[in-house]
């Protein structure tokens, strides 16, 4: 009986000290040591720079694709606002990065993803300014690059368009959260078992929760692509996403 009450006591103490923070799937404000915070910022900067130039160039070369650019940003906005329950008993949200990546390439989504993250940081206390660099790197750089690679690879080995889109969006989403786990694990290597023990712990929290959500994101991205294939064939062909089929 005594052990039970003492457990309860410690649990109460723990509750007092764990700050009741908003649900964010990104790394929380102040939760990366300054050195790492700066490191991820510096690493992200060149991608943002190239991304901005890439947007300018796309608008210049394909002015008709402005609506699609807007759609890519809007899709990321909606999906990252949806906190969805998962099989691990906790909730997380998708990233919505895959769609824009497939349409415009990974660099453009670095910028779009950063805008989403900034919005969530400033208005929702979600993620954080000090951890913005790290969160940009995982969601707006690693995510898009994985999605892009998977899409190109899957198309090359002859997967159908829908399957390639699904895999790209899904794995880009999961990749983001594996990266988040990695970032936390190298900043907080566990005393017993060091980096790997920590990585296992964090990926158990983030990446596992993310799997069903990533599947949902993949399906939602395919749904939007189905619409685009019907109504935006011209733009998709101009952006070299759909190959021109002879009728």
């Amino acid at each position: 009986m005594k052990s039970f009450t003492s457990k309860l006591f410690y649990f109460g103490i723990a509750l007092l000290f764990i700050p009741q923070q908003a649900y964010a799937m990104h790394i929380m404000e102040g939760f990366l040591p300054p050195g790492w915070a700066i490191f991820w910022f510096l690493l992200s900067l060149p991608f943002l720079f190239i991304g901005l130039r890439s947007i300018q160039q796309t608008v210049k070369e394909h002015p008709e694709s402005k609506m699609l650019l807007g759609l890519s940003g809007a899709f990321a906005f909606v999906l990252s606002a949806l906190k969805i329950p998962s099989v691990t008993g906790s909730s997380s949200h998708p990233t919505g990065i895959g769609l824009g990546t497939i349409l415009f390439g990974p660099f453009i989504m670095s910028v779009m993803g950063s805008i989403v993250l900034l919005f969530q940081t400033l208005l929702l206390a979600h993620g954080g300014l000090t951890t913005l660099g790290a969160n940009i790197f995982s969601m707006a750089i690693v995510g898009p690059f994985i999605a892009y690679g998977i899409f190109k690879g899957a198309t090359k080995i002859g997967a159908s368009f829908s399957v390639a889109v699904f895999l790209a969006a899904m794995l880009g989403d999961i990749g983001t959260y594996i990266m988040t786990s990695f970032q936390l694990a190298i900043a907080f290597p566990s005393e017993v078992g060091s980096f790997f023990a920590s990585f296992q712990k964090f990926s158990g929290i983030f990446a596992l929760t993310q799997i069903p959500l990533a599947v949902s994101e993949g399906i939602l991205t395919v749904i939007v692509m189905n619409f685009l294939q019907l109504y935006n064939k011209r733009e998709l062909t101009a952006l070299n996403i759909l190959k021109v089929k002879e009728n």
Partner: protein
Amino acid sequence: MWRKNIILFSFVVILTIFPLIFLQDADFDGADGKAEEAITDIAVSYEPWFHAIWEPPSGEVESLLFVLQAIIGAGFIGYFIGFMRGRSKNSKVDS
């Protein structure tokens, strides 16, 4: 296209509802809260060195802002769908 999409969408709905039905006693906290616990487990002495400049004063205000984020996105997507359908209708009339 619409039929295929409705079927696909129902998969998303099932995936979302599934945990709610089968994990009755889960609290569905944010994964971030659990990560915080994990950090304080590993690095007992770690103190967040920076705090959010502004935080929504309550869960209600926070969900309001989340809805706002979703509306901005969904609003544009709705506009996009309408615009593109209208455009394709017009081009059919023209040709």
